[in-house]
């Protein structure tokens, strides 16, 4: 991490579900510290794209490089790809922290346990140290008092913040956010956006699928507009929101406002 | 090498019955001890269900049966036997207040209790079955006796010694011996032998020799006297 190199590089990614081609060749580069907002209509493939990056979905074709290391893939014999090296995938995944739309906190663990789980059991951090880091993170997202609560007893916003703390605890190279606010009420949305804004100011690499255009415009330094499985247009936020070129994007932006 | 000696896990006095200590006692237990000592076998007692005792032997859960099992042709098809080690007549018992004898005519219309898969079952089915009301089969002899006392069967056919023990007990006070059945060696067999798996001739010879030896050196009579005032070895 000496000089800002490429954190994530995606080249010509394709993904099909049965007869349905959801991604039709998407390429993207995220440098260290980039905050990239991914916008697009429902069903345009935003979630699928994000999930392909950490191989929760296996891409049909294309290449994903994380921090200079290309994920090795081999044909799965059915026209798709599969990881050639499980260990590598696990290693790379453990450095890409995903924050899910529905949080997906582990319900059988307290907030603190959720946060220290991956550091201890995947990264091999000593327990004391993991707890210290976790408590610092929980303080930061304002959840320190709730560290021994179970997720089911937290509000949506609190759960979301716990999920962010869990993601930060792995000291990720990049964070992938999938619509972090869509399930929340307006008040909670504000709460979560504050935290993400803070992260953005810290120059963390972030890929952010979002429907909050105002927010995207504020925090991101690059916006990607996906449409029908392809990048219809991309550029700095002011350009995308201020002077959209393509017809589709114009229509999309007008419908948002 | 351990040898697992199987017998029926049920009270079958005076041959084998559990006592309140959880030990098995009786004539056959004494016999088994003497036999194993003589043959220098390391025997462990392994009670099993009577109706599964032959499968238990063939599937090697036990290595021999010392369970008052008569040597019959039918059984010899599946397992092997040592020489006999006792032989007693077969009798029919019934309530004192009913008069009948141990013949097909006498048992006409009666319900006869027998223990399942015994020579008595085979005999009763063949000779009394056609005229009797029902041949009721019990898992254990004890249950058959119990049902006789409870009036649920009219007669029980079994080994004279075993029934004698029952008649002498409190529960057996209701009943008396009605007679000895007519012998049919093809069913009632040639006395009781040690059941063995087929092909284990070495063990069989050891046991045959041991039976001879304890008969000869008086051990057999010594422990038999504790139970019987007659020679149980039979003719």
């Amino acid at each position, binding site marked *: 991490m000496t000089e800002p190199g490429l954190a994530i590089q995606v080249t010509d990614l394709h993904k099909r579900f*049965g007869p349905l081609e959801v991604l039709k060749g998407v390429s993207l580069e995220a440098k260290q510290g980039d905050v990239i907002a991914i916008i697009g209509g*429902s069903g345009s493939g935003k979630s699928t794209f994000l999930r392909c990056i950490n191989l929760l979905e296996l891409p049909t074709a294309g290449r994903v490089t994380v921090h200079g290391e290309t994920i090795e893939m081999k044909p799965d014999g059915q026209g798709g790809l599969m990881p050639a090296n499980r260990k590598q995938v696990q290693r790379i995944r453990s450095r890409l922290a995903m924050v899910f739309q529905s949080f997906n906190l582990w319900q059988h663990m307290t907030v603190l346990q959720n946060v220290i789980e991956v550091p201890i059991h995947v990264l091999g951090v000593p327990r004391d140290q993991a707890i210290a880091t976790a408590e610092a993170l929980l303080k930061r997202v304002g959840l320190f008092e709730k560290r021994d609560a179970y997720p089911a007893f937290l509000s949506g916003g609190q759960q979301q913040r716990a999920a962010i703390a869990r993601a930060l605890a792995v000291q990720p190279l990049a964070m992938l956010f999938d619509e972090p606010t869509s399930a929340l009420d307006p008040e909670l949305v504000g709460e979560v956006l504050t935290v993400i804004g803070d992260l953005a100011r810290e120059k963390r690499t972030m890929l952010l699928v979002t429907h909050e255009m105002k927010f995207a415009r504020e925090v991101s330094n690059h916006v990607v507009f996906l449409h029908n499985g392809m990048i219809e247009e991309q550029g700095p936020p002011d350009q995308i929101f201020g002077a959209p070129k393509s017809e589709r994007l114009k229509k999309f932006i007008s419908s948002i406002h | 090498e351990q040898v697992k000696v199987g017998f029926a896990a049920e009270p079958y006095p005076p041959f084998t019955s559990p006592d309140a200590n959880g030990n098995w006692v009786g004539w056959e237990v004494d016999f088994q001890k003497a036999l194993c000592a003589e043959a220098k076998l390391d025997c462990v007692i392994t009670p099993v269900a009577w109706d599964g005792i032959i499968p238990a032997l063939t599937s090697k859960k036990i290595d021999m049966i010392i369970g008052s099992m008569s040597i019959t042709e039918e059984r010899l*098809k599946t397992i092997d036997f040592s020489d006999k080690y006792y032989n007693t007549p077969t009798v029919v018992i019934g309530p004192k207040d009913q008069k009948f004898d141990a013949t097909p005519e006498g048992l006409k219309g009666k319900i006869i209790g027998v223990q399942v898969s015994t020579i008595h079952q085979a005999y009763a089915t063949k000779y009394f079955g056609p005229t009797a009301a029902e041949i009721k089969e019990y898992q254990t002899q004890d249950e058959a006796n119990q049902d006789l006392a409870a009036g649920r069967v009219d007669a029980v056919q079994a080994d004279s010694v075993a029934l004698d023990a029952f008649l002498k007990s409190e529960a057996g006070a209701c009943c008396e011996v009605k007679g000895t059945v007519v012998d049919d060696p093809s069913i009632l067999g040639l006395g009781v032998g040690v059941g063995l798996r087929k092909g284990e001739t070495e063990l069989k010879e050891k046991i045959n020799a041991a039976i001879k030896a304890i008969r000869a050196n008086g051990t057999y009579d010594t422990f038999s006297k504790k139970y019987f005032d007659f020679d149980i070895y039979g003719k």
Partner: protein
Amino acid sequence: MSEPTTLPAYTAPRPRSLFEPHRIVLMAIFAVLVFCVVWFMRWDWLPNYGTRLAYGVGETLIMLFSTAIVGFMLAVPIGLVQVTGPRPLSWLALTFCTIIRGTPLLLQLWMLYYGLGSLFAQYPEIRQSFLWPYLRQAWPYGFTALMISFAAYEGEVMRGAFAGVPRGELEAAEAFGMSRFKLFWRIWLPRAIHRALPTLNGETVLQLKATPLIATITVVDVYGVISRVRQDTFLTYEPLLLLALIYLCLTGLLIWGFRLLENRIPTRGA
């Protein structure tokens, strides 16, 4: 928002058919196994026992259905009083269910037959009574034990079913002026049975599987007949395999029958 993207609907993978390659291989192996069983094991005794087996199956089925029907008729009040009270009755029903469900059926069976049965015999009044010809047989005890056991387990099921009928449906019946009796017969009971049917199906299979225990008190059901075969032939596996097959078929039939019954009133999402 953006225009709806009309894309071909994603088709779920085909339901796995019976004739996938691996299944054909498995079935072939199975067929070979069956062939081996038929060919290499001894089945010559089978014809001799045909009628007795049929009789045994009949006895098993009679026991199953009679105990299930009578037991269920008992289960209805047992379940009902636990929902509606009065207190002493509901307490009684609960105790009954707990005791029966907390002890092994085999023990209950032996307790009735050897315990109670031998007590009866001690009283000349009973031995002289007209009941004695029945009391001295084994099946009344087997029937009673199985029936009581079914009643206890199903009482529990029916309690849940009665409590689970939506209150509103009962109120609707009340609001239309149904008498209590009618409400029970026309709405509450059928609705509860309807809800409980899948559970009752499972429980009846369990009851079928409990019937062979009566063979241990000299009732000759299909298990008893097979035991007899085992005694006569000294075969271990063949009769037991046949027995397993018979029960397998009976279970299948039972499940199929219940399915028919269930399908008469379709439920959504089931």
